[in-house]
């Protein structure tokens, strides 16, 4: 990757056109935007979407970006929150060709940068709860695209297999170096070695890179999930400074 201009200079309100939209799960939708003046984004960044009603009322929400790198193609995967102000529109009503106001790329905190930039060879542990997988898609894609040597392990906690985002792509990446683990809280697939159940500290200890290897850890999910997992990691000996979190609210 060449040196991009500083993040702030690149952040602006822009207009994107929907060029692809398809169901991701029964409640989520994958949406691809073409944003002609998009400056590219780092893996893990997000953008804000602003909807304006005919009467001028505006609603704005943040969405993680599932894609990374240069180019005008920006991919989102949006889970519909029944009480939400923005997600029901994006999942159910948004049409191909529609234009959307977006602000971004945003955030230099919850991002992964290649080892060639950071010179940090420590392994990376990603931990997703439900739709918290989206920024990690950008990270594992970027990691694979440049054949970065950093060991990557992804722990994906989800209710059941039909709720998994990007299942085929993740399984494909798992064949080429990504260490991929699932924890099913509701229903496990047939023949799954452990019964379904919410993630426990013991399961986490067994499925995450141990503290002795000093991994950099990223956690993304609901506030409750992030609190629980981050607390257990501290108890397991991980340094708070090595853990970055992205909680999403409920609307």
């Amino acid at each position, binding site marked *: 990757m060449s040196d991009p201009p500083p*993040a*702030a200079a690149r*952040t602006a309100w822009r207009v994107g056109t929907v060029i692809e939209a398809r169901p991701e799960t029964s409640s989520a939708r994958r949406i691809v935007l073409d944003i002609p003046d998009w400056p590219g984004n780092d893996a893990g960044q997000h953008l804000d979407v602003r909807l304006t009603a005919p009467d001028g009322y505006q609603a*704005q929400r*943040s969405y993680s970006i599932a894609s990374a790198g240069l180019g005008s193609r920006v991919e989102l995967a949006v889970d519909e929150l029944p009480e939400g102000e923005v997600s029901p529109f994006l999942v159910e009503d948004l049409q191909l060709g529609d234009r959307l106001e977006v602000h971004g790329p945003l955030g230099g*905190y919850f991002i992964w940068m290649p080892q060639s930039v950071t010179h940090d060879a420590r392994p990376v542990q990603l931990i997703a709860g439900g739709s918290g997988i989206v920024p990690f898609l950008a990270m594992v894609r970027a990691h694979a695209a440049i054949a970065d040597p950093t060991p990557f392990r992804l722990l994906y906690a989800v209710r059941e297999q039909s709720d998994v985002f990007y299942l085929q792509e993740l399984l494909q990446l798992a064949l080429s170096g990504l260490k991929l683990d699932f924890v099913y809280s509701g229903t496990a697939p047939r023949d799954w070695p452990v019964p379904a159940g919410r993630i426990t500290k013991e399961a986490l200890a067994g499925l995450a890179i141990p503290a002795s290897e000093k991994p950099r850890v990223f956690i993304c999910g609901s506030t409750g999930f992030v609190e629980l997992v981050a607390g257990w990691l501290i108890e397991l000996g991980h340094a708070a400074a090595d853990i970055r979190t992205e909680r999403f*609210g*409920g609307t």
Partner: protein
Amino acid sequence: MGHVDGNAIAGSLAEIFPFDVTAAVGRCAHCGSTGMIGDAMVYFAATGTIVRCANCDEVLAVLVETPSRIWLSLSGVRGLTLPT
């Protein structure tokens, strides 16, 4: 209502500052601890957004946005260090 991370106000802060504040390191004026703004706790309320220190829970910043203006108080932040 629960909180989210400092990362969640990157968009609002980008309307004000020409750099990404969430990746900056701030010192809490209350407890003196340092941390990235992205690590802070953000509470959204109808009246505005409150940013609290992840270490001592005191208020670092308050952000109020209306259609015509943005009001920001950084009373709990004693200094910001920015990556250049």
